[in-house]
């Protein structure tokens, strides 16, 4: 499923350094050193946004280059999954996303940290 151009442009506007790549038929967006919500350490970390059903059974996923610490206890059930030749970490977080844009999906995943 192709992501509409205007939704990609929205990501690009928000994150000028964002990069795109595809693996196993799934699109990913790499956002280098994304600023984390207040209270999260480290304050910035590379993230990989998968805005559609990923290859691990989630409707969308936000992967982190490392586990981040937040006040909220999260279920980091993906540790070192290899995507696009890099190991990534993710907490289990499902969002009801029909019709949501990638920016909204990203925001909802980050909300889990708050």
């Amino acid at each position, binding site marked *: 499923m192709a992501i509409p151009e205007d939704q*990609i*442009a929205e*990501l*690009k506007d928000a994150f000028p350094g*964002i*990069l*795109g*790549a*595809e*693996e*196993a*038929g799934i699109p990913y*967006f*790499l956002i280098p050193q994304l600023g984390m919500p207040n209270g999260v350490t480290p304050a910035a970390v590379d993230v990989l946004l998968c805005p559609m*059903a990923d*290859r*691990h*059974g*989630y409707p969308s996923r936000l992967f982190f280059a490392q586990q981040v610490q937040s006040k909220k206890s999260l*279920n980091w*059930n*993906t540790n*070192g*999954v*290899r*995507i*696009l*030749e890099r*190991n990534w970490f993710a907490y*289990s977080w499902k969002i009801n996303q029909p019709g949501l844009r990638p920016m909204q999906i990203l925001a909802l995943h980050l909300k889990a940290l708050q």
Partner: protein
Amino acid sequence: MTTCRIPRSIAQEMRDDLTRPHAFAAERIGFAFTRSSRSVDGRSTWILVTGYDPVLDDEYIDDPTVGARINSSAIRRVMQRVITTGEGAFHVHIHEHEGEPGLSYVDREELRPLMQSIRNASPTSDHGILLLSQDSARMEVLSPGTTSFKCASHISVIGYPMGLLCHEESRHHDEERFSRQSFLGEDSEERISTYRIGIVGLGGGGSHIAQQLAHIGFVHLALFDSDCVEASNLNRLVGATAADARKGTAKADIAARVIKGINPKAKIDVVKKRWQDDPDRLKACDLIFGCVDGFAERRDLEVVARRYLIPYVDIGLDVHQSGDEPPRMAGQIILSMPGGPCLTCIGFLTETKLIREAERYGVAGPRPQVVWANGILASTAVGVGIDLLTDWTRSLRGPVYLSYDSNTGEIQPHKRLAYLSSGPCPHFPFSQLGDPVFKPL
């Protein structure tokens, strides 16, 4: 060490093009395009062929002093492609004889400078020369930041069957050892001694595979498992003892011990961690047997195998029971060949299965497993692997998806094979080989 892997479809396309007669040129020329990857320690390079472009008939210059000379338009096209895509380019031609080919004086004097100039246009990629013969090949590689060409040590053709065009001399000949399996083919011993086989997961299935590969005579084996043996593994894990279960011996160490007992000359790479934490050792394999739990784990293994043009043989077993019916035990053996249908294409991996697994947080749990069913699946997988590597049946020419019904003892081609669509796998195009390419949006 530099390894080049060429998909069989592209190798065939090259050969078909290069052996066509031309109106005046004595030989034909083409360009292979590649993507590369380097190991973290910088000692290994993988060059993966993504495509081939023939030089067009009208791009040859009539020059009887050389086998073939091409004009600037052909070279411009190559330069344009490497600049646009970031791929490497290799000048390809063929010397129509058997055995290892060598560059002629003209080849050395003209092709190396040509490829240096292409490197100037795209300095961060590997470029060079690929010279084919009827049954062998030579690849000279000009790597980024270097000034001299170096030869690839391994060149293999990936497909049905596997081809070995160039490899380091094997020093493991043992005619007596191979005497009962010489029917596998004249060069089977050489192949078996040369290929590096990876086994991921050394439990019920993988331990059988390790043992059998050692008996067959494989020398280069990479064993991946981060687990240690427990008492509950003793019902099926070949080579494990009660003492191992008490001590918590690593499963990979047990497999290595079994292999060494059968073949002391084996060179075993024991990886007692997740393959994801040391992927270069997996990328170096010529064939991977996956004996893992869970669908997502299978997908992850297939992804890396596809990216590096490595055939992947998957085995799995499950037991189901509903109501008062007797338990049903069933399994599968699948060969996922780069370029061909993947686990998703053949309908084995589905979104529904992945979602269900994720809902259980990916934990497969203590699945029922038994030694005889593991053994049957493992033996069948080894048979598929040996056929692929030696082509002894001369009949393995397409996807393998076998289903095993342990209750009836039947193994048969899965019915989904009949409904496979032809054409390349849409999930793993050759353009995505090697290191991933991130593009600015």
